Each structure stands twice: as structure tokens, then as C-alpha cells.
């Protein structure tokens, strides 16, 4: 067996070793992505609200 095949073979335990590492990276990556989109969604919502506030203040000053 060449070294690369034997590396992926993991002494016959490849079917247990590789999924462990892949699942770990996928779960940690997904949690990071979820946290980032949670933050971005909040920032977008806050910005929209602040822009609306500025707009209504402008209207109020126009009326005055």
C-alpha cells in the first residue's frame, strides 16, 4: 500500500477516524457561521432602525 492510501486507511479504522475529524470541523465551522450571521443580522436591523430615526427626524425638522 502506498503511503497516501495507508494514511487514509488508518490501519483499517479510517471509517471511524475520518468521520470524527470531519464532523468536528463541520460542527465548529457551522457554529461559527451561525454566530457571524446572528451578529450581521442584528447589525443590519439596528442600522435600518437608526436610518429610519434619522429620516423621521429630518421630516420633523422639515415640518418645523
Amino acid at each position, binding site marked *: 500500500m502506498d503511503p497516501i492510501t495507508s494514511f487514509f486507511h488508518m490501519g483499517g479504522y479510517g471509517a*471511524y477516524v475520518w468521520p*470524527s475529524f470531519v464532523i468536528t470541523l463541520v460542527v465548529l465551522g457551522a*457554529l461559527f457561521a451561525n454566530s457571524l450571521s446572528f451578529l450581521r443580522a442584528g447589525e443590519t436591523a439596528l442600522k435600518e432602525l437608526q436610518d429610519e430615526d434619522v429620516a423621521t427626524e429630518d421630516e420633523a425638522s422639515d415640518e418645523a
Partner: protein
Amino acid sequence: MLHRFANPTRFLRLSAALLPWTAGLTLILLIAGLFLALFGSPADYQQGETVRIMYVHVPAAWMALFCYSCMAGASAVGLIWKHPLADMAAKATAPIGTCFTFLALVTGSLWGKPMWGAWWVWDARLTSVLILFFLYLGYMALHNAFDDPTRGARSAAILALVGFVNVPIIKFSVDWWNTLHQPSSVVKAGGPAIHPSMLTPLLLMGLAFTTYYLWVLLLRLRAEIVAGKVRAVRLRRAHG
């Protein structure tokens, strides 16, 4: 000291400075840890190549307990001093701890099948970690079960504190009961019973998971603060 950093505005500034450091450290430690875990460490004389599962399983289990302890500690601070940032820290920790507990269970199962011949056994260690997983889920469900966020935070904090009794049970389950799970080999009297070639990648992965926790915690805390501001603006409009 605590109050200096516990102010949300000051926290936003401090966390912005810390975020790139936690991100960079996580990636460096993770790459070094994975490299040593997969290439730079030997197979076990008894368990063969399956021992490599240890490098993700053990740090994930450490973090499952560490995150729960942080969540319970922050919950206590939130309950006693009514500090909003402490409640947010507990809330932000819960999903991270849930993921680590899930990973400990799944990778443990993937290690158990070839070594014990079973995906799952109802023994003390495995069962108490499964309970930890449900405690995290219960905490998050309770936090979101109330219209008033402060009542949700209070109820969830009490659950986190009551559930903390499970943490020492998990830690000592391998000594108190006969279990299939092996006892600790790193944190034990007389020093670690594990060769440096295996201890180094294990500790690197443990550090990588710790900085990952800090990184994602800072992100989620910032997200909680922003979400709180959005809620406050909407409430002010609804009543104004």
C-alpha cells in the same frame, strides 16, 4: 475591575480589539494540533490508529464541562448582581457548550464502536454526558420560553445552577462506578500517564478549542448586545 469591563459599550470596544487575536490563535493552534494529531504522533500499541480520535474527543469533552462551568458561573453572577452582561455571557455560552457536548458524544461513539464493539452503552460516564447535553438544550429552551427576556434569563440561570451538580458527577463517574470508559490519563495524581508525543497534540487541540470558545463567545456576546439594542429601539417606538 469586573465592572470596568462589564459595561456593554466598553465591552464592545474591548472585544473588537480581542477578536482578531482569538481568531488568529484558534487557526494557528488548530492547524498545529491537527498536523501533530494526524501526522506527528504515533499509533497506540493497544488501540492502533483509533487513538487519533482522542485528539478531538477529549478536548471536546473538556470544553463541554468547561463551557457548562462558565455558563453556571455567569448565571450565578447574573442572578446575584443582576448584571445584564453576565446573563448574555451565559446565554451565548450555551450553544457553544451544546456543540462541544454533541461532538464528545458522537466522536466517543465513533471510538466506542471499534474499541468496545458498541456505539453506545448506558454506563455512568456516557449517561451523565448525555444528561449534560439535555441540560444545555433545556437551558436554551427555557431562556426562550418567556416573553419577558429577564424572566427567561432568571429561570434558565436557576436551571444552570441546579444542573451544575452533574459536572462533578461526570468528572468522577469513572472513579465512582465501574464503567467501560477509561479513567483520566492527563489530569491525575503523579502527573499525566501519556507520552509527550501524544500529550502535545492533545494539549494543542485543547488550547485551540479554548480559543475557539473565546472567539465565538465574543462574536455571540456582541450579537446579543446588538439584538438587545434592536429590541430596546422597537420597544421605545411601540410605546412612544
